[in-house]
């Protein structure tokens, strides 16, 4: 990271809006140096003393992990990203009621936020066990893998985040009625005045609302 750049760590899931935010924030004269990774990766880096000042996290467990190490000054929720059932282009758009007879791809149901949500939903509607035992659920990896598996035709659809579905720029999606995972902005210990200013910028709805909505997020605050 060059000189006095402000180092920010951002989960992949927040990359599309973040890129536009960076562009916009550059006008303020502060140069942002953004590092992308998974929540877990970034959290572990922070626990080892990574010089990030702001961390945008999409996974409650890793947020708690960083907090438990006493490395967070304060934080706030910036947006939620609803869970959706996505159907690739050229296939009949899936509805939730089609689920029992469809092959779907989901992210890792143990480790990935949207995998966990997908499983939560399927369990709630009592489909999980039967679908898994019939091999109707292709799981593992992150949202992009799930989307890709569906895109290649190996699955009829994928349960992923709304922002990812939007990012695919094709196909269609319907919302899955579970609590949407929330993205939080964490200002880390030792944050400078510039970092606080960035946090303030993100917190002020007006500056990022449009961008977030464009990207499929639901702004909180």
């Amino acid at each position, binding site marked *: 990271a060059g000189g006095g750049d402000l180092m920010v760590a951002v989960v992949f899931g927040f990359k599309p809006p973040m890129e536009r935010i960076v562009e916009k924030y550059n006008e303020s004269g502060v140069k942002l140096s953004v590092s992308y990774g998974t929540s877990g990766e970034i959290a572990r880096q922070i626990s080892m003393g990574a010089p990030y000042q702001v961390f945008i996290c999409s996974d409650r467990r890793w947020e708690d992990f960083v907090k438990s190490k006493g490395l967070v000054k304060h934080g706030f929720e910036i947006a939620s990203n609803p869970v959706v059932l996505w159907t690739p282009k050229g296939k009949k758009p899936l509805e939730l009621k089609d689920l029992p007879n469809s092959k779907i791809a989901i992210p*890792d149901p143990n480790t990935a936020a949207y995998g966990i949500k997908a499983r939560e939903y399927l369990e709630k509607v009592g489909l999980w066990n039967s679908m898994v035992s019939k091999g109707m659920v*292709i799981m593992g990896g992150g949202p992009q893998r799930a989307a*890709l598996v569906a895109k290649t035709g190996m699955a009829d659809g994928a349960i992923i985040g709304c922002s990812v579905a939007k990012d695919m720029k094709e196909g269609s999606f319907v919302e899955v009625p579970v609590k949407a995972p929330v993205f939080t902005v964490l200002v880390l210990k030792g944050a400078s005045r510039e970092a606080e200013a960035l946090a303030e910028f993100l917190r002020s709805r007006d500056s990022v609302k449009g961008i977030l909505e464009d990207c499929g997020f639901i702004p909180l605050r």
Partner: protein
Amino acid sequence: MLDALLISLKVLAIDAPILALLGAALGWVLSRWSFRGRELLGLMLQLPVIMPPSVLGFYLLFVIAKTPGLRDMGVLFSFPAAVIGSIAPSLPLMIQSARGAFGSVDRTLEEAARVLGASRLRVFFSVTLPLCRRQLGVGLALACARALGDFGVTLMLAGNVPGSTQTLPLYIYSQVETLDFGAAHLASGLLALVGVGCLFLIRVMENGRGTLH
């Protein structure tokens, strides 16, 4: 964890002979045949080492899913995919090593064997192969280590299904992602142990027949 270990070992048990045979065969062709585009083919075969594993996995997934015959064999997202996933990035290591190994064998010795009436096949197995066994062993060790440790490609092609495609590296990943660091460390230790054990085995095997030259 023992499940994952078992799967890793199963994958390795299938990988090792494939790597040894296919890798050696391709290495041999590249070192001994001369044909148009040999250099190019040699370089192309090295591409999987250069590609980041998950990207490689990505492309492989695409290719397999879009190729009619392959798709219908149902190898994806199941145990066979774990095998393919671990072979893809490690085969080039074996090919490259084998190519070097075969290239270093003194041709006069092969000639001597042929003059003594040995068929090409016998020359290969009784002279060429033993003379570069050590180097092939080094290559196989590298390739097996890479295969054992693979995670990115396997994850892409096979997913991470405990008891079916969750190899030890994937298990470690899962434990880390669920913040169970204790299990992750333990599994890493186990992986290291297995890896070192395999390398050791290969070393013992290649030294099997006593000192060479």
